[in-house]
């Protein structure tokens, strides 16, 4: 057994345990409970003691009993060094330490005497730590967005750290911000506009892209190579260099403040990537199928509709979801082209809320939830398709 290994083991395990506890304590603080100290020294030292005990016990008796005992010890210790905390706080500490001791239960003297075991240990904990930290850092803003929308301005100003949700006030009171956002701020209308624009973009893009992608994938014509490289190049041009000319042209043509204008621009900007993604898929469909179709007397249109389309439904769904996401989230063009509230999309409406007179933040966050939730639900539900769309389309962002 190497001293270095024991040292690394104790130090890193205890640090990991402490960081888990920290995250839990931050979440507890955000429930409005007064908690001003992490008790780093005490918890860290006690963590080291417990890790050493864990090591000494090793596999001498039932592992499950071992982890429950250690976790209990740790939570009782935490309960005594911190003051006036509710019992659910300690219960959380118990669950976290249970998880922690479960992940170190297999380490004993034998393991630590192996080669590289300290490095392996380090990376195991780094992974665990990383997963926890990444999830926390990523989910935290989303959590704040949701919770803020359930509060009131007065409560938020009274104690900026109190994000506890009072379920006793009843559902209508809880969802008040949402009622107001939909009723007074007209979000129902904006949501409809966003939906129409996004779905419209998807349909028009597909109508334009499928034939073009088929031609690029299958047919021989002069300028084909040039076309397929220029698709990529065009795709790399950002909206910000298009915005001034499009603004000038659209304002002279009277296309600003119109859904048609948005549809045209969104379709044109998503077309290159749609063609690029679809033609890649079309190329993977065996040519023999089409040749059979030609022998059956189908023309090009028949081939596209009866052979290519049914076979490439997965790719088409990917493109459709990706284009939907881009159109739903788009901000720059909607900011430039829309300045009348009756044509606002959701993104533009939220920006308008923020810029306009002091909008209470719970309304702003309720609006943000309204624009975020649909896209997240779609993402989680159709993850497989959307991820392949993201990978193919990720040259843009």
């Amino acid at each position: 057994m190497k001293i270095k290994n024991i040292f690394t083991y104790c130090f890193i395990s205890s640090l990991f345990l402490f960081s888990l506890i920290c995250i839990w304590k931050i979440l507890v603080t955000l429930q409005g409970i007064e908690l001003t100290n992490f008790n780093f020294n005490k918890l860290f030292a006690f963590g080291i003691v417990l890790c050493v005990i864990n090591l000494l016990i090793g596999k001498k008796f039932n592992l499950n009993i071992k982890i429950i005992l250690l976790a209990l010890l740790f939570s009782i210790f935490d309960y005594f060094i911190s003051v006036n905390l509710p019992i659910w706080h300690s219960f959380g500490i118990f669950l976290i330490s249970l998880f922690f001791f479960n992940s170190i239960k297999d380490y004993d003297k034998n393991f630590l005497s192996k080669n590289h075991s300290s490095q392996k240990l380090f990376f195991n904990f780094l992974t665990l730590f990383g997963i926890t930290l990444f999830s926390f850092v990523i989910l935290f803003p989303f959590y704040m967005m949701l919770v803020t929308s359930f509060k009131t301005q007065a409560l938020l100003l009274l104690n900026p750290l109190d994000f506890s949700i009072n379920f006793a006030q009843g559902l209508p009171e809880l969802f008040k911000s949402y009622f107001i956002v939909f009723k007074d701020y007209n979000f129902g209308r904006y949501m409809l506009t966003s939906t129409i624009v996004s779905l419209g973009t998807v349909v028009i893009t597909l109508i334009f892209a499928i034939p073009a992608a088929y031609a690029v994938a299958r047919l021989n014509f002069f300028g084909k190579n040039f076309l397929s490289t220029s698709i990529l190049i065009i795709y790399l041009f950002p909206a910000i260099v298009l915005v001034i000319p499009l603004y000038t042209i659209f304002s002279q043509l009277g296309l600003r403040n119109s859904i048609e204008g948005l549809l045209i621009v969104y379709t044109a900007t998503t077309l290159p990537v749609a063609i690029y993604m679809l033609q890649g898929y079309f190329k993977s469909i065996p040519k023999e199928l089409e040749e059979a179709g030609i022998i059956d007397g189908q023309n090009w249109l028949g081939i596209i509709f009866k052979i290519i389309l049914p076979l490439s439904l997965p790719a088409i769904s990917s493109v459709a979801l990706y284009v939907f996401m881009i159109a739903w989230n788009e901000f720059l063009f909607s900011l430039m082209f829309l300045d009348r509230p009756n044509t606002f999309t959701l993104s533009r409406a939220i920006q308008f809320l923020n810029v306009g007179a002091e909008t209470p933040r719970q309304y702003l966050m309720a609006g943000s939830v309204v624009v975020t939730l649909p896209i997240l639900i779609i993402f989680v539900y159709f993850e497989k398709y959307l991820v392949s769309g993201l990978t193919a389309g990720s040259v843009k962002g």
Partner: protein
Amino acid sequence: MSSKLAKIEKRTAYLLILPSVLLVFSIILFPIFSNIWISFKNVELKDLRIPEPRAKKLVKSINDNPNQIKVIYKLRNSSLTQEITNVKFKDKYPDDIEPISLNNKCQFKSNLLKCELGNWPKKYRENLEIVFQNINNQEISKKELKSYKPKLSGKSQNILLTYEFTLNNFKKVIKDKAFIDLLSTTFYYTFFGTIGAIVFGILAAQMVNQKFFGRTFMRSVLLFPYVAPVVALAYTWELLLDPTSGTLNNLLINYQIIDGPINLLGQKYVTLNILGFDFKLRLALTTVIIFEIWRYFPLAFLFILARLQAVPKELYEAADVDGANPIQKFLNITLPQILAVISILFMIRFIWNFNKFEDIFLLTGGASGTRTLPINVYQQGFSIGDIGMGSAVSIVIVVFLLIFMFIYFKLLGKRADEN
């Protein structure tokens, strides 16, 4: 026979791609080229409205005489800057109504009043008054008169279509003292945003590439910042970082980590003391970069994860047999395998971060030292209202973009050669 088929094939192909090509040409390529045109012109936002001759029609009854009526047209040039030439006026009247007298500019024929109003200088205003009577001495209905709207037409110069060019916009862009600052901010933002996103992407991909409980869920969660709308995320961050009522500052103060609130998005510099050396960190810019990394590392993660999953397991098993430690395995097996992906990723992300507008615009609006080139396009074009300047800055972006693309495609070509 075959050449006939080839001809049909060709024709079909052009037919199929034509709509897409036309649309992309008119909405993407044409604007890029018109940027060049506009950037050599002295155009402001207020010049964009095409000058229109306008007339407001007022109908007034004449004292105690119901069969006569006075019509007043309030004429004006809608433009404050441009002249309208050769203005023509047309209005319709009901039957049996005739003007009592007309000036020489106007004619009345078969219920139609036509006038040639000549040239209107900028800000032009004039009233045209005509008295009408009913020839059958019947009462004239005001409502009916009002229901007809006058039609005006005139020619005006569209400032965008003239052949007057100037180099002033580019001179202003280059001579601007802040230009170097603008460039350095843009590159700083782009470079660190890209590197950060890739580093965190590698870390996340390494993590998720191992087997653990809830791995698929973790993969979805990691992509959340990338799929959610930027508006919602930026405003949530803004509330989170707010100096007075923001959660982050209050938490840090609560745990006594900092003494007073820090305005993370509104403070340009913060002086850090590290090992006795003071150095200035661009605070707001750093915060914006962290947001950028937070939002876009999922993409790097996705790419790298896909590549990692394709690395043959035998390589790692062989390394285990050789007794390699985890760091050696990462450096000697994983890294060479993902290096190609990383270089492509770096170029793509670099190009996109270079052009990133929304994130900075929503978080700081370009204040406190976060003004990058794309933000400058917006500020010149729409905040200041100098469309020509905005276009000139766009051209600067396009030039950089073309350089990056050249490097990118060189890289892509080199990689294709290797495979």
